[in-house]
């Protein structure tokens, strides 16, 4: 029993870690490769989550639709809508320099959050959407459903990883990194900066949307508390930096590593002496904050630093 428990805890870490890995890969495409400082991850995540949830739940009077589509269609919709939103944001903001883009995207995410909380005819506001199905949910129940979901999540992670690798190891990726480093000279080399950036931003946002969708299906319930920037935006940045920005494998490693760190600290703080117990959560946050500093100082350029892709025909 102990062991099955630990096994399923591991499964849960891997599921959440997988969702974070998607976010990290998406951010890596945007920031690691494209130099686009997206600090509004939570916004695109939320769009994906709500889209997928609305598309897949059964008809309801409390919110828009409830279209009862299969999960896969929901995730596709999440990618499309988040991508579309990304496109609109990129069209307006992509010219901004990195710090400014960061602020603009934080602002947009915050506006989106307010829309989600206030426009309850679409989202049921703060009361949230219930009864969101899991993939193959009709055949499975109980803990084993988590295993199936784990496989589902990681299949998507692998697909996105391969796409990200292809993007990275290509003339497209190279030009993108060139644009990141120096716009003026990229333009002088005939690169249509705006086009590259919009493409990057849209691809990244679409993946963030998928991650959002998956989280909605994982929790089976979606309310604004699922799109908290602390856990969605900032933590993802931490993961990417710790894993090594510019490196897709680093993104995945960072996501798993930091999420494990984040999650497991509680197991230790729960074992503090009794008189500390009520404060254990504060101690945990303190610990997380300190561990973060250690990670930053010890793994300067991330666990796996950025490398230029190899050229296959070079000896």
């Amino acid at each position, binding site marked *: *029993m*102990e062991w099955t*428990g*630990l*096994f*399923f*805890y591991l499964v*849960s*870490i891997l599921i*959440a870690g997988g969702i974070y890995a998607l976010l990290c890969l998406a951010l890596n495409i945007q920031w690691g490769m494209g130099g686009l400082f997206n600090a509004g991850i939570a916004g695109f995540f939320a769009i994906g989550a709500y889209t997928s949830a609305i598309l897949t739940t059964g008809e309801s009077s409390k919110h828009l639709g409830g279209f009862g589509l299969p999960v896969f269609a929901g995730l596709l919709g999440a990618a499309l809508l988040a991508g579309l939103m990304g496109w609109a944001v990129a069209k307006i903001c992509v010219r901004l320099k990195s710090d400014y883009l960061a602020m603009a995207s934080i602002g947009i995410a915050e506006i989106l959050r*307010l829309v989600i*909380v*206030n426009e*309850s005819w679409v989202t049921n*506001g*703060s*009361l*949230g959407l*219930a*009864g969101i199905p899991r993939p193959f949910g009709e055949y499975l*129940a*109980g*803990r084993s*459903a*988590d295993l199936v979901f784990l496989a589902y999540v990681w299949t998507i992670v692998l697909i996105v990883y391969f796409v990200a690798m292809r993007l990275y190891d290509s003339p497209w990726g190279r030009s993108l990194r060139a644009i990141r480093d120096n716009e003026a000279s990229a333009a002088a080399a005939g690169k249509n900066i705006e086009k590259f950036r919009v493409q990057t931003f849209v691809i990244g946002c679409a993946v963030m949307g998928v991650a959002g969708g998956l*989280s909605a299906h*994982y*929790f*089976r*319930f*979606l*309310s*604004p*508390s*699922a799109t*908290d920037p*602390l*856990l*969605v935006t900032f933590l993802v940045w931490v993961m990417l930096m710790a894993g090594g920005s510019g490196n897709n494998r680093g993104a995945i490693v960072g996501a798993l590593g930091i999420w494990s760190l*984040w*999650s497991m600290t*509680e*197991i230790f703080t*729960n074992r503090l002496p009794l008189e500390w*117990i*009520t404060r*254990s*959560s*504060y101690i*945990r*946050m303190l610990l997380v904050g300190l561990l973060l500093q250690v990670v930053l100082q010890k793994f300067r350029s991330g666990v796996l630093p950025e490398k230029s892709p190899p050229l296959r025909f070079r000896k």
Partner: protein
Amino acid sequence: ADTKIGVLMDITGPIANFIPPLQNAANLAVKQVNEQGGLLDGNAVAVYGDTTGSSQGAVDAAQKLANVENVPIIMGALMSGTTIAAAEAVSIPTGIVQISPTATSPAMTDLKDNDLVYRIVPSDNFQGEVLAKMVLDEGIKKVAVTYVNNDYGVGIGQTFMDAYKKAGGEIVAAVKHEEKKDSYRSELASLTKGGAEALVVIAYAGDSGGKIVKQSIEGGLFTRFIGTDGLRDDLLIKDVGADALKTSFFSSPTSPADNPAQKTLHDEFNAEFGEGADKAFVDQTYDATFLAMLAVEKAGSTDRAKIAAALRDVASAPGEKVGPGEWAKAKELIKEGKDIDYDGAGGTYDFDAHGDVRGYVGKFVVDGDSYKQIEVMQ
């Protein structure tokens, strides 16, 4: 051996400021159990999980409680969002009973939960309706309403307004407001239009609710306030003074008639921690924790499968009444094989088929530096 009781709370994050008295409440329950014979054949140990106020954190914390700590039952969480996410993703699949002391979202009623998810506060719909009746009974025909934009405020606010209008009241202004702002004066300015007799505030005293009351008194905008359990907090009296609240009244879930159980609990709580018994949701948190332990005791083991049935058993009639702090008595009765029925500080808790309770709502007014219950409605 000791038995772990999972306590899931939103300790850090957006509602951090509500938590300390609630942790005290849970700890008090555990302490009393251990002083009066312990749980099963050992002591009870509360294991906390922190949801950080987000779904991700809630699921993660619940996973740890369920799988690493291996708890037989979970008390919590407090916000509806974190409660339902933890229930859907963890408690239901792992077959753990979860009792929330405070989650009021109507969505909880319809969860496909294999009879595992309970709560001991009535769904929002209930308090809203009763409040409407209470206000009309006072002879107030025109009110302005403001409610906080979260699951708590929206739930009660909407049902209140619907019920109030249906029963003939007039709502002259209604404003939904965001939490955590510093000034609500512009919201208040629009609420004053229309000449309402009183302002209905559905928000927490520790956050927007307290600020709204204070700022309307300072601005001379309203003198009469009607609040819900979130506002009915000693902090409010401390903040604006009893004088300013003379004509105001508050609703809060309670137990039928005048409830000695509540007084017992409050006395013990204040004896232990000095203050805070009157904070929002202290009663419910204590009761939920106590109930959780009763259910484990009743089940006779930490076998998760047996606990759900046991919980219904100990919470509802028939059976010998047990109240807050009466663990020794309860343990004795269970050992004798007798049926018990826990009636807590916050209500009698008879679960319906959905794991919800029908509640009683009390009407409170300010009395000195705390509140006095003057009427109970069902």
